[in-house]
C-alpha cells in the first residue's frame, strides 16, 4: 500500500529522486532496479526533469507529485491519499486529481480523503461520506 500525505512528508535534505528511492530502500527492492523504477514514476508524475532538485526548490504541487511518486514506486495495489489536495490551490489540485485518475485507470485502487466538495463532484467515483468519524452516506 502506498500513502500520500496532505503535507507531502518529503525528506527536506534529499533530492526528488532520493525521496523516491527511500521508499524502494524501505521496501527492500534490489538497488539495481531503483533507477529504472524511479525514472518511470518521475516521468509518470511529470518530474523527470526535476529529479535532482531539493524540496525547497519545488512548488506545492510538485511536492505532492513527489509524494505521489514515492507512493507509486513500490507498485502498490492500493494508494491511500490523505487529503492530497488539501494544501494546494484549485488549479494545482486539479492537476493532482488528473494524475490520480490516470493512475486509477492503470489499475490501482485509490482511497482518498478530502474536504473538497468540488473534487468529489468532479471525480465521479464511489463516495463514502463521514461525519464526526461515522459513515453517514455510502
Amino acid at each position, binding site marked *: 500500500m502506498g500513502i500520500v*500525505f496532505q503535507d507531502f512528508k518529503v525528506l527536506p535534505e534529499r533530492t526528488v529522486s532520493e525521496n523516491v528511492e527511500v521508499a524502494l530502500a*524501505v521496501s527492500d527492492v534490489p*538497488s539495481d532496479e531503483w533507477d529504472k523504477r524511479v525514472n518511470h514514476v518521475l516521468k509518470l508524475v511529470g518530474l523527470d526533469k526535476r529529479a535532482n532538485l531539493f524540496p525547497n526548490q519545488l512548488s506545492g504541487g510538485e511536492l505532492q507529485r513527489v509524494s505521489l511518486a514515492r507512493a507509486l514506486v513500490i507498485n502498490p495495489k492500493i494508494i491511500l491519499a490523505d487529503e492530497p489536495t488539501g494544501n494546494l490551490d484549485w488549479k494545482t489540485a486539479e492537476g493532482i486529481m488528473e494524475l490520480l485518475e490516470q493512475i486509477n485507470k492503470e489499475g490501482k485502487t485509490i482511497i482518498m480523503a478530502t474536504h473538497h466538495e468540488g473534487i468529489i463532484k468532479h471525480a465521479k467515483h464511489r463516495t463514502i461520506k463521514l461525519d464526526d468519524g461515522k459513515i453517514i452516506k455510502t
Partner: protein
Amino acid sequence: MSIHTKTAVDSIKRSPFQAISAIFVLGLTFFVATMVAILVFATDKTLTYFETRPQIISFLKDEATPELISVLQNKLSSDARIKNVKYVSKEEALEIYKTATSDNPLLAELVSPSIFPASLEFSVTDLKLAEEVINDVKTEGIVADVGFTANIGGEKSLSDVVGRLKSISNYVRVGGIVFVAILAISSFLVLLIIISMRMTTRKGEIEILSLIGATPAFIRSPIVLEAIFYSLIGVLSGWTLALILWLYASPSVISYFGEIPVIPKDPISFFLLFAVILGVELLAGVVISLTGSLLAVSRSLKKAR
C-alpha cells in the same frame, strides 16, 4: 554507495565541526592508547630481559681443568631449576671488562686476563630458587665464589632489580589503563552527545521514515554508520600519529637502551606490533561507537514515543 552510507556521509558533511570534535576526541584517545600499549610492551620486555639474563655467576678456581668445568656445566644444565648455562673464559671476561671500560682504555691496559677468573653464568627459572641454587653451587669443589649480576640503581640483588621493574611495570599498566579508560569514557560521552544532537536535528526525517514504513533498523543504520566512521577515522588518526612518533624516536630509543629490547629492532616485528595494536583499537573503536550510537538512538526514539 548504499543509501545508508550516503545518508551518513551527507550528515557528516552538513555538520563538519561536530564531526571534527568527535574525531579529535577519539583520535586523542587512541593516540594515548597506542602510546600506553607501547609503554606496557616496553616495560614487559625490559622485565623479561632482566628476568632471563644470566642472573648468577659462579667464579671458578684457577686450578679448574676444562674437564671439571665441562662436568659442572653439564650438571648445571641438567638441573631443572637452572637455565641458559654459559661458560665465560678468562679471556672473554677481559673482553667484557674492556668493553665496559671502553671510555677509559687505560683501565683495560692495567689488567691482564689472569686476574679475571673464568666463570659459569646461568639463570634460575624462578628467582625464589636463587638462594638455594647459590648454596648448592658453592659446595662444588672448583667454584671459588658465587654472586648475582646486574646491580643497578643501588639494588643489592637481581631480585631487587626485578622487583623494582615489576612495580614500575605495574604503575605503567594501571596508570595507563586508568588514563585510557577516562579518555574512552570521554569519547563515549562525546559520541553519545553528538549522536543525540543528530537525532534531534533528524527528528522530522525519522518521523517521515517511520510513516512510510521504515523499520527501526533502517532508521538506525545511517546514524550507527556515522558513529563508526568517527571511531574508525579517530583510531586511524591517533594510531598513525603514534606510529610516526615512534618511527621518528625509535633509533634514539634503541640506541639509548642498547641491548634491552624495549621496542622491536627489526622492522617486521615493529610493524607487526603496531598492526596488532591497530587491530585491537579498531575493535575497541567499533564497540565504543556501536554502544554509544545505539544508546543515543534508543534514548531518542524512546523520547519521540
